[in-house]
C-alpha cells in the first residue's frame, strides 16, 4: 500500500481535492436550503431539498468514468428527493385541515398577488404525473434522465468491447442530456421568500400566526415568493465552450491535406503507410486518428505512430483486424490511381514520452502493443547516433511477447537492422531484448533445440535467441535490480490488463524503500 501511494500520489491528490470540492458544494447548498430564512416556508411543505452538483471536467477515461458514476449517483439522489417533494406538495394541496402547509399551498397563482405562489400544484385536481410532464423542470428532468440511462447502459464494458459503434453513437446523446440540464431550472419551480416580504413578515415572527395573515390588523402579510433563477447553466457553460472549441479544432486539423509518400505491404497483411502533413509534429509513442472517406464517412480509427520524430515522414502500420482495416488494405493493394484519400487527426499524447527520462528503461510490448515501441526504439537510436545529450538512457531491456511473429515481421526487420547498427557502432550492450513466443509447440521447440549453436536464431534471424513461453518476471526484475542498484528504472508496458497487474506488483516489490536505491516506476499505455 505504501508503495502504491508513492507511485500514484498525484492522482490521489487530484481525486481527493475533487471529491472534497463536490462534498463541500453539496453540503453548502444543502445547508443553504436547510437553514437559511428565505426558504423557511418552502421547508415547511417539503421537509428538505437538495441539488445535483457535478463538475464536467474530462482529463482522461478513468476520470470520465468517475464523473459519470458521480452523475448517476447524484441524479438518483436528486430524483428521489424531488419525488418526495412532489408528493408533499401534492398532499399539502389536497389538505383541507387549515395547517400552515395548506394555507401556504392556497397562496394564489393569481396575477393580483404578483404570482407569489409557493406550491406548483395549483389545484387539487392536478396529479403528480400531470405536473411532472407539464412543467419545464419535470419534462427536461425525465428526458435528460432517460438519455443518461441509455448512455450508461450502452457504455457497459461488454457493449464497448464488442459493439463499439453502438456505444459511440448512443454516447452522443450527451448533447440531449446537457441541453435538458441547462434548461432544467428555467421553470423556477423552487421558490423562496422575496427580500421585501422577509423584511415585512419574517417567518420567525409570522409563521405561528398564519391563521391571521389575511386579517387587516395583523402585523403579518401573506409571504411573497419568487422562483430561484436557473443555475445549472453556469456550471456547464465553460466546459461546453471548451468542448465545442476542441471539436472545431479537430475538424479543422482533419481537413488539412495528407500526402502519402510511401505504401509498403508487409507479409501477413500488414500495411505500412508513410505520410506527410503540413505542420505535423509528433513525439514518441503518440497515436493519430485516421479516416478514409472512401471507406466510411464517419469512422475515425486510432493507430499508433511507428515512425520516430527525427524522420521527415510519419508512418502507421495497419493490420487487418476488422472490416474497416480489411477494406483499407484491399483499397491500397489494388493499386488504384488515384490512391485513396486519408484524413488524419492528432497526434495525441500518451505516457511513453517519459521514456527518455529514465537511466534504465524496461520496455514490455505484448502482441499488437509492440507498435509504440517501434517509434521509441527508432527515436532512441537516432538520438544515440547524434550523441544527443538529453538522452539519459544508459540501458534498455526490451521484452517482446507474442504468440507468433507472423504479423510483426516488420518489427522483426527493425530489430535486425538495429542490431546491425549497434554492432557497427560497437555498442552491443545498449539494447537488450528478449523475444518470448507464447504460441509454441513441440515442433518449433524441437527445431530450435537442433539448431542451438547457430549464431542467429532460426525463427527471427536475430542474435539473441528466442525464448518460449512467458517471461518469469520475478527473475527478470531481480536481475535488473542487482545490475543497477542505484538507478531509477522506468517500466513501460503496452499490453493486456493481467500483465499490467503482474508488472505493477513486481515494480512495487522490487523497488527498495530507500529512495536512493533502485526504484521501479510503472507506466502503462492506455488504449
Amino acid at each position, binding site marked *: 500500500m505504501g508503495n502504491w501511494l508513492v507511485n500514484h500520489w498525484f492522482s490521489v491528490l487530484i481525486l481527493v481535492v475533487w471529491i472534497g470540492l463536490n462534498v463541500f458544494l453539496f453540503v453548502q447548498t444543502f445547508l443553504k436550503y436547510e437553514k437559511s430564512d428565505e426558504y423557511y416556508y418552502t421547508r415547511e411543505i417539503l421537509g428538505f431539498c437538495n441539488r445535483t452538483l457535478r463538475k464536467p471536467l474530462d482529463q482522461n477515461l478513468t476520470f470520465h468514468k468517475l464523473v459519470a458514476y458521480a452523475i448517476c449517483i447524484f441524479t438518483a439522489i436528486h430524483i428521489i428527493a424531488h419525488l418526495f417533494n412532489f408528493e408533499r406538495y401534492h398532499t399539502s394541496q389536497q389538505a383541507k385541515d387549515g395547517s400552515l402547509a395548506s394555507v401556504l399551498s392556497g397562496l394564489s397563482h393569481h396575477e393580483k398577488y404578483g404570482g407569489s405562489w409557493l406550491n406548483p400544484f395549483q389545484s387539487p385536481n392536478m396529479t403528480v404525473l400531470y405536473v411532472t410532464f407539464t412543467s419545464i423542470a419535470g419534462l427536461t428532468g425525465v428526458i435528460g434522465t432517460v438519455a443518461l*440511462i441509455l448512455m450508461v447502459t450502452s457504455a457497459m464494458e461488454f457493449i464497448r468491447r*464488442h459493439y463499439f459503434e453502438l456505444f459511440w453513437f448512443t454516447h452522443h446523446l450527451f448533447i440531449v442530456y446537457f441541453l435538458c440540464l441547462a434548461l432544467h431550472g428555467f421553470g423556477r419551480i423552487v421558490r423562496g421568500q422575496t427580500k421585501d416580504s422577509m423584511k415585512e413578515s419574517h417567518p420567525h415572527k409570522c409563521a405561528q400566526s398564519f391563521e391571521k395573515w389575511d386579517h387587516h390588523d395583523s402585523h403579518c402579510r401573506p409571504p411573497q415568493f419568487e422562483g430561484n433563477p436557473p443555475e445549472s447553466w453556469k456550471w456547464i457553460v465553460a466546459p461546453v465552450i471548451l468542448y465545442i472549441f476542441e471539436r472545431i479544432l479537430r475538424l479543422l486539423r482533419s481537413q488539412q491535406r495528407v500526402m502519402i509518400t510511401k505504401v509498403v505491404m508487409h507479409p501477413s497483411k500488414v500495411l505500412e503507410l508513410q505520410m506527410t502533413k503540413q505542420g505535423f509534429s509528433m513525439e514518441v509513442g503518440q497515436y493519430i486518428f485516421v479516416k478514409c472517406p472512401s471507406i466510411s464517412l464517419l469512422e475515425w480509427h486510432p493507430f499508433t505512430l511507428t515512425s520516430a520524430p527525427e524522420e521527415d515522414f510519419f508512418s502507421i502500420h495497419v493490420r487487418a483486424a476488422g472490416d474497416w482495416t480489411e477494406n483499407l488494405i484491399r483499397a491500397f493493394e489494388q493499386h488504384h490511381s488515384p490512391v485513396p484519400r486519408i484524413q488524419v487527426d492528432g497526434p495525441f499524447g500518451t505516457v511513453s514520452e517519459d521514456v527518455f527520462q529514465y537511466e534504465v528503461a524496461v520496455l514490455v510490448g505484448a502482441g499488437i502493443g509492440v507498435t509504440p515501441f517501434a517509434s521509441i526504439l527508432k527515436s532512441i537510436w537516432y538520438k544515440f547516433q547524434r550523441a544527443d545529450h538529453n538522452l539519459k538512457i544508459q540501458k534498455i531491456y526490451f521484452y517482446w511477447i507474442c504468440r507468433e511473429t507472423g504479423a510483426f515481421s516488420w518489427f522483426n526487420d527493425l530489430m535486425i537492422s538495429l542490431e546491425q547498427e549497434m554492432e557497427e557502432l560497437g555498442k552491443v550492450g545498449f539494447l537488450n531484448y528478449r523475444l518470448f513466443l507464447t504460441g509454441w509447440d513441440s515442433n518449433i521447440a524441437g527445431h530450435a533445440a537442433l539448431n542451438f549453436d547457430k549464431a542467429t536464431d532460426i525463427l527471427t534471424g536475430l542474435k539473441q535467441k528466442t525464448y518460449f513461453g512467458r517471461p518469469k518476471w520475478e527473475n527478470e526484475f531481480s536481475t535488473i535490480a542487482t545490475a543497477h542498484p542505484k538507478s531509477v528504472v522506468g517500466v513501460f508496458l503496452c499490453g493486456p490488463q493481467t500483465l499490467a497487474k503482474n508488472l505493477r506488483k513486481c515494480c512495487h516489490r522490487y523497488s527498495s524503500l530507500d529512495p536512493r536505491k533502485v526504484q521501479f516506476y510503472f507506466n502503462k499505455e492506455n488504449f
Partner: protein
Amino acid sequence: WANEQALASGLILVAGGIVATVGRFAQWYFGAYSIAAGALVCLLEYPRGRRRKGSTMERCGQKYVAAAVKLFGPLTRNYYVRAVLHLLLSVPAGFLLATILGTVC
C-alpha cells in the same frame, strides 16, 4: 444492448418502487407492485445470452439464475415473448411518478 437496458430498467423499477413504498406516497401499492415486477425482470435478464459469433463473458453466478429462467420453458426463453412480457409488466408501474422511469426504460 437490450439485455443491458432491460437489466438496468429492472433495477430502476425496484428502486422507484422502494421509494414509493417507503415514502407511503399516494397509491403506494403501485410501488409495491413495481418492486415485485422489477425483481422478476432482473431475474429473467440477468443471464447474458450468447453472441452469434465470438466469445461471450458470462456474468458471475448466472448459471443458477439461468436454471430458473429455463423453468418456465419456452415462455421465458423466447425473446419475442419476453419482450411482450416486459411491456405488460411495466405498464402498471407507469401510473406512479416514482416508478414511471422504470416503465419508460
